[in-house]
């Protein structure tokens, strides 16, 4: 293998290097997060007071809601956690020289860019898709969305899905086949475990979405009637197919977060992860159970009572492995010698906020209770606590944890801590009052609301402004890191950081591990 490093634009455009591709994914996710975040700011601005503040066209509000959802899920969290951190650290953590199929890796990334182009086209051609990210027919049918925007949105999801599927094939092959000698499955770092489970979810869930999307596309354009009642189809079938994909999708977004958090907690507590095997198999079981709970998103469509009872019970089960994870993290910290650098702050914040999102999930799992909550802001609060405050906090945590490794420069600690506190306070003011709004009955996806909901909406919008200010601090952190960051040592975190990526220099050489490292330490499963 030559040590030749390509330079200039070719290094990036033709890149087959997992680190370069990972960096591109992370930069891409940051840019898309700014776009999706701007959309949410516009939503909060509109909802700050009753009445219509600035939107002339109510359809545009629905386009914002749809775009915010699609971008944050498919174009921020998935590329950031899986494409970004996954590409960077899975090969490093298992001691592999690169991914199994480096050129496929390149294709995955550029397919995502093509998907983005489609998504942008969908907004500008025909006024955008105002269907919500769930795209329920008949609203998404040609009768009610007759312009091509929904078609472009479908194509965008197809391409993003193909990108993720190819990425997942790559991860599975890499993890199964390219671990360093001595690294058995039961010694794999938990982040690698989390990506492996996620990749399996991706290759099984996304094809179902692809199938359903194709059906919707032919329903719209070629006269089929998979979901059209007049042709013998059933709109509810779309919901079954969509959520059969959609629920595993939720775990696709949160499992890599679990992996990252485990490493950070262990590193800064200077203790190995407590109950390593339990942690790994908790993720496996969360992934598996994720497939048999989908209809809890559909409690009000008119499902039989026994069906709802089953989905209630199955959904409840998820609380058990999730509880194991929360308590194991706390047990990892127990007896540790903890320091509170920025990544650790975000990780502790993650544990608490994920708990809040988790317990409201238990409330929502109850099919009867869901009659009060379904499609209200309670649901909005719930999934933002697990995703916006869960998955996104883990992305920030991962960024601070690994930026020194990735760029060779350490972030400014004081600014990082400021970023954490501003964000933590902002998002809680933003999302906690939404529980109250939901309980009081405010429906989601409405551009204006009855005047009684004004108070908490105002508070929520103020929280959004604070969180938005936090994002500006984050951008400044990035700027300072690259212009004035101190040079990072191979291992800036000391004794607690035991995984293989800390054994190479910061940044790692272009070709790391051309000779497989001998893996005999037992960082995770140590006695």
């Amino acid at each position, binding site marked *: 293998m030559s040590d030749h490093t390509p330079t200039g634009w070719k290094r990036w455009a033709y890149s087959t290097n997992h680190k370069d591709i990972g960096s591109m994914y992370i930069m891409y996710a940051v840019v898309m997060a700014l776009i999706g975040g701007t959309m949410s700011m516009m939503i909060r601005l509109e909802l700050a007071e009753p009445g219509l503040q600035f939107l002339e066209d109510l359809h545009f509000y629905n386009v914002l809601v749809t775009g915010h959802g699609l971008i944050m899920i498919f174009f921020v969290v998935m590329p950031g956690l899986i494409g970004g951190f996954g590409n960077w650290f899975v090969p490093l953590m298992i001691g592999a020289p690169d991914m199994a199929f480096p050129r496929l890796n390149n294709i995955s990334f550029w397919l995502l860019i093509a998907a983005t182009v489609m998504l942008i086209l969908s907004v500008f051609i025909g006024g955008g898709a105002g269907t919500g990210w769930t795209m329920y027919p008949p609203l998404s049918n040609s009768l009610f969305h007759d312009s091509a925007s929904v078609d472009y949105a479908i194509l965008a999801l197809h391409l993003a899905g193909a990108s993720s599927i190819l990425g997942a094939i790559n991860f599975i092959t890499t993890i199964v*086949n390219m671990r360093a000698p001595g690294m058995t499955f039961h010694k794999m770092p938990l982040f690698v475990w989390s990506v492996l489970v996620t990749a399996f979810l991706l290759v099984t869930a996304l*094809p179902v979405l692809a199938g359903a999307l194709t059906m919707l596309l032919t329903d719209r354009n070629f006269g089929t009637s998979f979901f059209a009642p*007049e042709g013998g189809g*059933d709109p*509810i079938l779309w919901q079954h*197919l969509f959520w059969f994909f959609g629920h595993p999708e939720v775990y696709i977004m949160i499992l890599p977060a679990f992996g990252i958090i485990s490493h950070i907690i262990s590193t800064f507590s200077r203790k190995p992860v407590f109950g390593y095997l339990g942690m790994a198999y908790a993720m496996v079981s969360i992934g598996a159970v994720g497939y048999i709970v989908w209809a809890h998103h559909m409690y009000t469509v*008119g*499902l*039989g009572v026994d*069906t709802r009872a089953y989905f209630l019970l199955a959904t409840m089960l998820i609380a058990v492995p999730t509880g194991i994870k929360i308590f194991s993290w706390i047990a990892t910290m127990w007896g540790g010698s903890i320091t509170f650098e920025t990544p650790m702050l975000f990780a502790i914040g993650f544990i608490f906020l994920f708990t809040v999102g988790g317990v409201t999930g238990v409330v929502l799992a109850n099919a009867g209770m869901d009659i009060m909550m379904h499609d209200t802001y309670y649901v909005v609060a719930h999934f933002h606590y697990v995703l916006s405050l869960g998955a996104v906090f883990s992305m920030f945590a991962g960024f601070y944890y690994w930026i020194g490794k990735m760029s060779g420069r350490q972030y400014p600690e004081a600014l990082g801590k400021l970023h954490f506190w501003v964000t933590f306070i902002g998002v809680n003011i933003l999302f906690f009052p939404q529980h109250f709004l939901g309980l009081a009955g405010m429906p989601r996806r409405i551009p204006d609301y009855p005047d009684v909901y004004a108070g908490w909406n105002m508070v929520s919008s103020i929280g959004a402004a604070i969180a938005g200010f936090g994002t500006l601090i984050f951008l400044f952190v990035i700027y300072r890191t690259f212009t004035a960051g101190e040079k990072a040592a191979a291992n800036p975190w000391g004794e607690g950081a035991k995984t293989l990526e800390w054994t190479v220099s910061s940044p790692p050489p272009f070709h790391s591990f051309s000779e497989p490292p001998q893996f005999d330490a037992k960082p995770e499963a140590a006695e």
Partner: protein
Amino acid sequence: MSNTTQSKRNRTIGLAVVGIVFSMVALAYASVPLYRIFCQVTGYGGTPQITESGPTTAMSQRKIKVRFNADVNSSLDWKFKPYEHEMEVHLGETALATYSAENDGKETVTGTAIFNVTPLKAAPYFNKVECFCFSEQTLAAGETADMPVSFFVDPEILEDPNTQEVRTITLSYTFYRAKSDS
């Protein structure tokens, strides 16, 4: 391990995963007919049972009320009503109800009716012997047609703990313009 054996193993695993991907797509498509069959067989989603013959069990003394609901989608300029809003039948008794449809439009149109039963959980016990929904209906402008449906309610509805308390079943039809006609 040499590089060639590794890339060979990589390819094997990669292809296996590709296989998983394609079988999941196939599964998504298979779910369409499977879902329909599942609904028909189990009465899921309020799909009533369709039988060739009459009831197999003896008629019960218990009676149940059957209501009739009629809707027309806006794509169709028809009037569509049941002659009777409700009737009381014995469990296990085959009864006949009639709807009437009138084409208020100016052209000949073909409609197709879709149907279900509420409460949804009563559907497995609601059997239709013969009904107009099985075929498309064509009406000329101004034409009126009577559409009969014969049905019976299975006495086993009393055995199911979920449906024991059901005293009224609603049979609903919605007429859409047939896809072949639009």
